[in-house]
């Protein structure tokens, strides 16, 4: 028996029990797994999977994000009455952003929403592709160049009534400061004629920034802006407008509504991206505005630590 065993394991470790290796001698284009933008996420939008996802979102992710990020949501009244598919465009600082935003979208959009996710990062492995498309309803989007397939997929989904959550910065910020928006979202909006809802999200960088090694629970703010109608606009201006709208929203929570509105019309280059990026001052300013952290975790307690301070 002991002699047989390795034989069986050997058999099981070979073709056809395992995938066969691609012959290196092939004179033709080598075969690629349908990953990246060619990964088919259709299955994740089938009804049973949607139901499962909705259950997970409402019963697991929502309490979990609440615990970790304690979000304060502003401006829901601006979107609550809207109908039909929308494009939600938000700044991006953390992996937490997607679940957090999904959980806090108005009910109407929450369960019929796909998330644009970087094809190179979220769809580079089979298991990742299945995980993200299944769990969050992610669809693969090419970040840096125009990919017809991914653009077609998103417009088609919007046409079918799906809302889209997208991070126009094209990636998480390195330093917590904003980055300039890419043109993809504007093109999508123009192509599908869908209004874009700007969202300002704050505080997730502190909880799980790009270079953080662990989660530090904290407070976050989510601000929904008024939808921007893309009709009769050109892509470049629309991008700017969305970027500005997000910046206005940030002003709105830090200063007040009126100052923000004023800035909107006075400041030509209203943007989250600071002009003086790289200098310590920008980061100093930002951290001052950030929502306050919990001073110390509730558990585990550092017994006796209060004595020393």
């Amino acid at each position: 028996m002991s002699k047989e065993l390795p034989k069986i394991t050997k058999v099981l470790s070979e073709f056809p029990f395992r995938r066969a290796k691609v012959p290196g001698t092939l004179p033709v284009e080598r075969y690629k797994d349908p990953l990246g933008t060619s990964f088919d996420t259709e299955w994740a939008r089938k009804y049973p999977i949607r139901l499962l996802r909705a259950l997970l979102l409402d019963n697991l992710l929502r309490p979990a994000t609440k615990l970790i990020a304690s979000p304060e949501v502003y401006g829901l009244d601006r979107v609550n009455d809207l109908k039909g598919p929308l494009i939600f465009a938000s700044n991006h600082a953390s992996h937490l952003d997607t679940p957090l935003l999904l959980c806090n979208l108005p009910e109407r959009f929450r369960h019929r929403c796909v998330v644009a996710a970087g094809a190179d990062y979220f769809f580079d492995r089979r298991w990742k592709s299945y995980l993200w498309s299944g769990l969050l309803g992610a669809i693969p989007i090419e970040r840096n160049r125009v990919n017809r397939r991914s653009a077609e997929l998103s417009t088609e989904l919007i046409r079918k009534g799906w809302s889209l959550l997208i991070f126009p910065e094209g990636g998480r910020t390195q330093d917590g400061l904003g980055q300039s928006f890419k043109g993809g979202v504007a093109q999508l909006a123009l192509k599908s004629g869908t209004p874009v809802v700007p969202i300002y999200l704050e505080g997730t960088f502190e909880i799980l920034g790009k270079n953080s090694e662990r989660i530090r629970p904290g407070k976050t703010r989510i601000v929904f802006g008024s939808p921007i109608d893309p009709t009769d606009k050109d892509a470049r201006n629309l991008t700017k407008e969305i970027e500005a709208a997000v910046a206005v929203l940030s002003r709105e929570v830090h200063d007040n509504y009126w100052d923000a509105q004023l800035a909107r019309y006075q400041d030509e280059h209203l943007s989250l991206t600071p002009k003086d990026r790289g200098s310590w001052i920008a980061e100093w300013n930002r951290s001052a505005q950030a929502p306050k952290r919990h001073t110390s975790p509730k558990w585990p307690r550092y017994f006796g630590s209060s004595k020393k301070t």
Partner: protein
Amino acid sequence: MTSRPGFVLEVDRSTPPILMWHGNSYRLERFPKGARILYPPEPQEPIKDPKSAIAQALESPTGDSKPLSALLHKGMRLVIAFDDVSLPLPQMQAPDVRQMVIEAVLEKAAEHGVDDVYLIAALALHRRMTEGELRHALGARVYDAFHPRKRLLQHDAEDPSNLVDLGTTEHGEVVEINKLAAEADLLVYVNINLVSMDGGHKSVATGLASYRSIRHHHNVKTMVHSKSFMDMHNSELHTSNWRMGRHIASQGVKIFQIETTLNTDTFPKPFEFLSKREWEWNLKDRTAFIASSTSLQASPDWISRDIMHKIRSPYKLTGINAGEVEAVHAKTLDKVFSQQLVNVEGQSDILTMGLPFVGPYNVNSIMNPILVYCLALGYFFNMYIGKPLVRPGGVVIISHPNKAEFDPAFHPSYIDFYEQVLTETTDPKEIEKRFEESFANDPWYIHLYRKGNAYHGVHPFYMWYWGAHALDHLGGVIILGGDPKATRRLGFQPASTMMDAIEMAKSVVGPDPSITHLHSPPLVMAKVI
């Protein structure tokens, strides 16, 4: 998605074992390092709207021919002949191309008030089609409209009252074809060109001919000089058929030829992996392979045969041409070659092939040893242009169980051929000389051919002649996994494993042989440079 072309894979250490057909089942077979595997091209994109493509082909014919509607007029007799059950293989998913084309032709005829229409299955010496097969090929509408009126006929090569002698060609070949077809005002032939052997003048000159006529090209001499019969320019078989075809045309028979080509999308959903490359098999494919191959091997022959013969291929139309025979056929051939042709460099010492469950002559039936011989040495061996895949004096290794099982209803003469001819000799020339006459004229076979569903008495001989060129060319044939008794009866050697077979072949071709494996089906044709 465009279809990827076929290619030749050279086996190295990391090459996975390769799918090999074995009758009603299949298995994975590891090939020695350096062997070449010939992979077929992927199925071509089908025509998106076959209906309008058919309509267009009928109205804008190829070559020197008027459009179909100009050929139809009230009061004429229209005969539509169509290819029989031997095409395509396996039978295609409904609707069959023949149904689509014939319906289009019939609608045109109805539009022009053509009343007198006959449909004839161009059987040649094949068995009569069963009702189920006719319904499948023509569709229920056509069948129900024509069969009750006795206007859906099957060609009878032994019915002297319905054959007409059109004289002889300049080579003295008797041209005798179906009277109804020959005397019609217009003969429309609806063909399926699955391989490059089909079609052209062969459609009418063979499909609708009598034994007296067919014997002029279906004989050992012609077949030995058809190198290969898949390449009409080097095929004596076709040269003779072309002479006959031209003679038929010169006798005033008006033929409107419709030729169709299909892609090679051979296997339906659960069996998809059979036409995929092994390293592209996903979890589903691999699971399907393991489950299906083990259960097929474990189940009794009749069950596995039944399962496999239930396969209906998702073939799709890739081309249709209509009009004058030769012009149409030239276009058809281009299309067939563009789907099936793969360039191969040089011949090899050994050619291996796994035979599937069906050949042209055992649709819904048993593949008997003679059909195994014919499929391997007749069809697969001849899938080349230029030179055979195997060098002169080389060895062919066939994988098939090759059991001595026969279908007494379809192949009665095969049983006697196997028992009474092959026990005496396997030399095609001697077989032809000593036995053909008595089988061809046996009244019982003729009776069963005409009234039952049997192949003509002479048909097993043609099977044997089909392999004559290969027998002439080869140094030996080994049947891997073949029943020893039946294999020896064919004059071949049985082997139990691939390694054994290769070792046996070495005694013929010498040490360190080069090996080529024909990874087919789907169909692939080699252009050997």
